[in-house]
């Protein structure tokens, strides 16, 4: 199973911690330094399925930008998405929580920081799908323009930030 070898790192850690279906990995190169340099940032909890090949890239992006991230592997991310009220049409692969806000998909750290500063009356931010070139989706195949959306508990959706190609 060559295809999973590059994802083996985090799976291996999950097994070591031995917490069964739900395993938390609070670790990672650089996160200590990042925490020291940005102590005000709220901790992030990220939920993903074991078979997703891009969610850890976003976790690394968040850590590199000063966030402390719990990387949690769950059997069904859909349960988390429903609990946090992520509208189905905005769904991506992983779902995260920070300071009571939902973060769906590969939302850039800069947008999360602006969310935490401004605290708009929304339930969270979502970057639907998995746009090439978004954090954790860097690719030699190209970049896509994308729009980060904000959504409310009642399902109202608005544009939060636009990212050109």
């Amino acid at each position, binding site marked *: 199973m060559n*295809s999973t070898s590059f994802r083996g790192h985090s799976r291996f850690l999950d097994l070591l911690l031995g917490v069964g279906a739900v395993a938390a990995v609070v670790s990672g190169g650089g996160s200590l330094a990042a925490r020291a340099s940005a102590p005000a940032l709220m901790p992030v909890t990220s939920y993903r*399925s074991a078979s997703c090949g891009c969610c850890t890239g976003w976790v690394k992006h968040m850590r590199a930008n000063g966030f402390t991230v719990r990387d949690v592997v769950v059997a069904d991310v859909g349960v988390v998405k429903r609990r946090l009220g992520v509208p189905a049409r905005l769904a991506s692969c992983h779902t995260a929580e920070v300071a009571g806000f939902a973060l769906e998909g590969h939302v850039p750290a800069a947008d999360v920081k602006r969310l935490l500063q401004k605290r708009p009356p929304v339930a969270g931010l979502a970057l639907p799908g998995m*746009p090439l070139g978004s954090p954790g989706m860097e690719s030699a195949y190209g970049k896509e323009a994308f729009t980060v959306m904000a959504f409310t508990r009642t399902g109202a959706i608005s544009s939060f930030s636009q990212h050109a190609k």
Partner: protein
Amino acid sequence: MTTPLRRRQVLGLGLAGLGTAVVGPVLWDRVQRSAARAQPAGAARLASRGGLADLELVAQATRGTLPGGPAELLTYNGRSPGPLLEVNAGDRVRLRLRNELKQPTNLHFHGLHIPPTGTADNVFLSVPPGGSFDYEFTLAKDHPAGLFYVHPHQHGLSADQVFGGLSSALVVRGDLDRIPEVAAAKETVLVLKDFASASGQEAAMGVGRMLGREGPLLTVNGAINPGLAIPSGGLLRLRLLNASNARMYRLALEGHSLVLIATDGGAIATPEPLDELLLAPGERADVLVQGNQTPGSYRLLNLPYQRSGHMGMAAAEDAPRTLATLSYAGTVPPLPLPKALIPVPALPKPERTRRFVMAHAMGTGMGGMKHDMGAMGGGGMAMGGMGMGFVINGQAFDPDRIDTRVALGSTEDWLIVNDDVMDHPFHLHVNPFQVISRAGRPESQRRWKDTVLVKAGEEVRIRVTFRDFPGRTVYHCHNLDHEDLGLMGVLQIE
């Protein structure tokens, strides 16, 4: 023989010069240039005569209109879908491809059992802008009758070109067409294709290349909700081709069963009535519809389908959408369904089993990135790697690397494993295969297939004999964005 559709609303293809007044400056420039060259749309059907098919397809950008505004569509001979190509088993086929696009293109003869080399189904050749190529091959006298699919296979541009509108259905006449009950049916080829909206806004909503682009506009033979006619008592043979880039079709016809008589590679052994038919990109199916209901109108529906293991991802529509409308017209003495079709023999015992694991990942290949991913900081790509994309057994497509070598004449089982959060329709060129089992459950009936849907997290076992033709070819995901993003491998038959 083919029933023309009554077009309620037809895309404005081949109508260069009659376009709309409101055109943005950038598009205007392109439209001007393509309109200046545009020719009237060619014939809707090109057929062989006396054992020779002498065909020409001109790939071009054509000014068209979509609901919501003008658009530049990609066409063969000014049409999308391109002309219906109709040949007989045993025919000599000469097909000149003229490339009037601004980028290279080529052709793949999806499903045909012909050589993967030379002037036949050679997807490694490329026709430059302004160039042309003469494809030439002979279909075996016993080539199965079926519905096949001609489309571009230019690596890196396949999805753009197919999503833009390039495709033609190819009918091979033969054994199945001679079964009396099938011959008595009225026949209609239905090319199912979605288009982006004129604004293309949906890409910003996340239905991008990683999931595979879908468009909100559903068309059948380039028309929106065309009418189909059936006489009371009659039989209608619907020949369905999913020519979309990534969209799945979960088809149902109100009030009627879809009686399956053929899959990708030709006839099945016994007709099989279905309430629903799932068709992945690249797949085909022939179904018979019996005009045995109260005369009236019935909708051919596309039912919601979730093609990602993740709730909501990949823009599942939450309500059925109408593709076409079947109306009763006239009466004929009742036509029976065929009792038996054409046997599908069991393949020999496999000599070996291989395993192919499909996933999206920070891929290796194209330079062989091999190092600790932890060292990549923000998850970016490193020198030599492709970064995020799709892989088979950990490797992204590299045309210069042979991934799988098989012996000519041998039979193998391939276990196709989807270790991903989204569906992947797996397609093999040149040789049809049979699905042995899905998720460990044996298939109920043998069928000839060249494309099989492997759902997120699922495993499918296929069996294939590499007959007749040595050479180099490919297997890949037929979500064409995935193919372009690396989900393809090279097969050497020797």
